[in-house]
């Protein structure tokens, strides 16, 4: 049965900070769409949603969720961008035996050493990005890399993952810098990248740091000088705000692109009409994950974490977002990823016509195989 006759969803994300454009208010809108499309009720029980800004601070996020669960009896937490926040929140959610659907976070550790039985990592992770982009780039001859790495756990993880891929595929790392979070000027690092003579400059950073790196790279003519840039964590909104002039030719891995199929176009159109923006993979993922969650409740007619999680694991995900997506025991939702390249201004036909999909990375290739998992929940561990 459904606790206090109401399904309560908490939407937690960076609502105003660096990451607010990739999930933020747009993500909340997507979640609301999902609820509306569900008729606002599941088995006649009202669905309500509360939201909060975690300011990318784990203590604020965790505390907020704790309060949601203790006071507002929230059943599920969605959104969640900063990996640090997510890990903290998942701890609380596990302790209180509720559900969390992580769409925004990158760190693959969420379903690895930090995995919990109560959370799903839905859209993408560093492993997927690293392998998607890394392999592709090396295949095309980008076999010597220089990293611009944000000096914190996420950056390090990213760098490590990519390094592995590059080495496996026969490339080598010629150097790198670890820059502090929110560095305001990247020219010095770009200069070092140029001096390194590497073919590829890999950006193992996110948000403003990535966009600033790209701007500066453009300014210093990195690409003209014959180097290529591999953006490892770049979202549609970044490309959109930077403009094609700056980002053209950039290769990246994404879990979703609005202009890929009829379904994606249809849903994205609806989203666009509500928000005036095309959805990022995270925002699309939020809609998909919330819907999947509500379906599970509907099926089990219960919002008890164990029931819902079980149901969600059993049923494959087939919607505009994912085909044959499934949730593994470590909480990883595996689905096809896509290698995309940013179009040249000449190729683009509209404000949002930004990517061309190069190829599909099949689900089983895209994510870390369970055999390598450090997750306590994985059988044989």
């Amino acid at each position: 049965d459904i606790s206090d006759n109401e399904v309560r969803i908490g939407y937690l994300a960076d609502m105003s900070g660096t990451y607010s454009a990739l999930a933020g208010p747009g993500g909340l809108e997507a979640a609301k769409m999902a609820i509306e499309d569900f008729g606002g009720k599941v088995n006649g029980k009202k669905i309500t949603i509360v939201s909060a800004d975690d300011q990318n601070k784990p203590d604020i996020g965790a505390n907020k969720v704790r309060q949601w669960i203790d006071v507002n009896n929230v059943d599920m937490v969605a959104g969640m961008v900063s990996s640090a926040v997510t890990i903290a929140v998942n701890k609380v959610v596990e302790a209180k035996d509720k559900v969390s659907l992580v769409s925004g976070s990158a760190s693959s550790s969420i379903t690895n050493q930090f995995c919990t039985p109560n959370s799903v990592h839905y859209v993408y992770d560093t492993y997927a990005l690293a392998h998607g982009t890394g392999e592709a780039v090396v295949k095309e001859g980008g076999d010597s890399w220089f990293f611009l790495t944000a000096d914190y756990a996420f950056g390090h993880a990213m760098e490590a993952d990519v390094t592995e891929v590059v080495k496996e595929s026969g490339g080598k790392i010629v150097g790198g810098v670890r820059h502090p979070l929110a560095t305001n000027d990247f020219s010095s690092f770009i200069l070092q990248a140029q001096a390194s003579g590497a073919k590829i400059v890999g950006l193992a950073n996110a948000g403003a740091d990535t966009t600033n790196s790209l701007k500066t790279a453009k300014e210093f003519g990195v690409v003209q000088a014959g180097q290529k840039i591999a953006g490892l964590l770049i979202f549609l909104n970044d490309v959109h705000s930077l403009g094609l002039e700056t980002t053209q030719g950039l290769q990246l891995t994404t879990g979703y692109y609005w202009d890929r199929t009829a379904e994606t176009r249809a849903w994205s159109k609806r989203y666009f009409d509500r928000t005036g923006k095309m959805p990022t993979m995270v925002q699309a993922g939020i809609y998909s994950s919330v819907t999947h969650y509500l379906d599970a409740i509907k099926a089990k007619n219960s919002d008890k974490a164990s029931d819902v999680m079980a149901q969600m694991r059993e049923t494959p995900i087939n919607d505009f977002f994912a085909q044959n997506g499934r949730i593994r025991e470590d909480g990883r939702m595996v689905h096809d990823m896509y290698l995309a390249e940013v179009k040249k201004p000449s190729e683009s036909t509209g404000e949002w016509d930004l990517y061309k999909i190069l190829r599909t990375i099949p689900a089983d290739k895209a994510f870390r195989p369970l055999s390598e998992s450090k997750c306590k929940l994985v059988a044989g561990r």
Partner: protein
Amino acid sequence: MAELLGFPPQVLFGQLLIGLINGSFYALLSLGLAIIFGLLNIINFAHGAQYMLGAFVAWLGLKFLGVNYWVSLILAPVVVAAIGIAIEKTMLRRLYKEDHLYGLLLTFGLALIIEGSFIHFFGVSGQPFSAPELLQGGNNLGFMFLPTYRAWIIVASLIICFGTWYMIERTKLGAYLRAGTENPQLLQAFGINVPLLITLTYGYGVALAAFAGVLAAPIYSVSPVMGSNLLIVVFAVVVIGGMGSIFGAIVTGLLMGLIEGLTKVFYPEASTTVIFLVMIIVLLIRPAGLFGKEA
């Protein structure tokens, strides 16, 4: 080719140049802070926000009114200065007699308001703003590719900085400023319109920030938070230079740019922290900063 500390000299040279460029931003901003602190005895925490305003005014001007870069370079500082003057006349004015902690808090509050509202309306992700035709592209100096725009930054800011310095240290008006810094009431009693002097000074300090903002717009993304990160660094610069010392602010600004630049080569992780280390060391050796006068 001989290596220097494991780096080919030309690489280091490039890094130093880059450092100098960033330094000239520090110089511009800390100069404004120093002037304001000097005469108003107020630690202008809104400086970062006003720097951001400068960039945004330029961006909005371009986007909605088609005002070009060169016009903005003059216009934006004027507009922001006007805002600053309004702030001074309506709020700061009431605080001069108070402990300067209050000035700091008021301006801090203002910064929160300004940045907060801009985030609300424009979001934090940076707005694109391209350099004017004339300054696009760049040329290869052999040891590095120097974008024309970066060269322009050094030139522009150095001219402004040293012009200002000359004005304050070598002219009668400057003498009034320095005197007003110490004892405005008495200066007033000599027949000088101190309130006006103060208002204009604040306006000028703010204008400097805005000017830096416009300079920054094409190379850093125009975003509401662009100033807040810079702010405490610039404070550190002012303090290292010696509170209220104009010359100190300028020179230290450039110096810190260089030091930061080198750190970005040898220990990038610490590049945003190194300035504070320098500050501690300096203050331990010279309690009033490099160019400050001992009390």
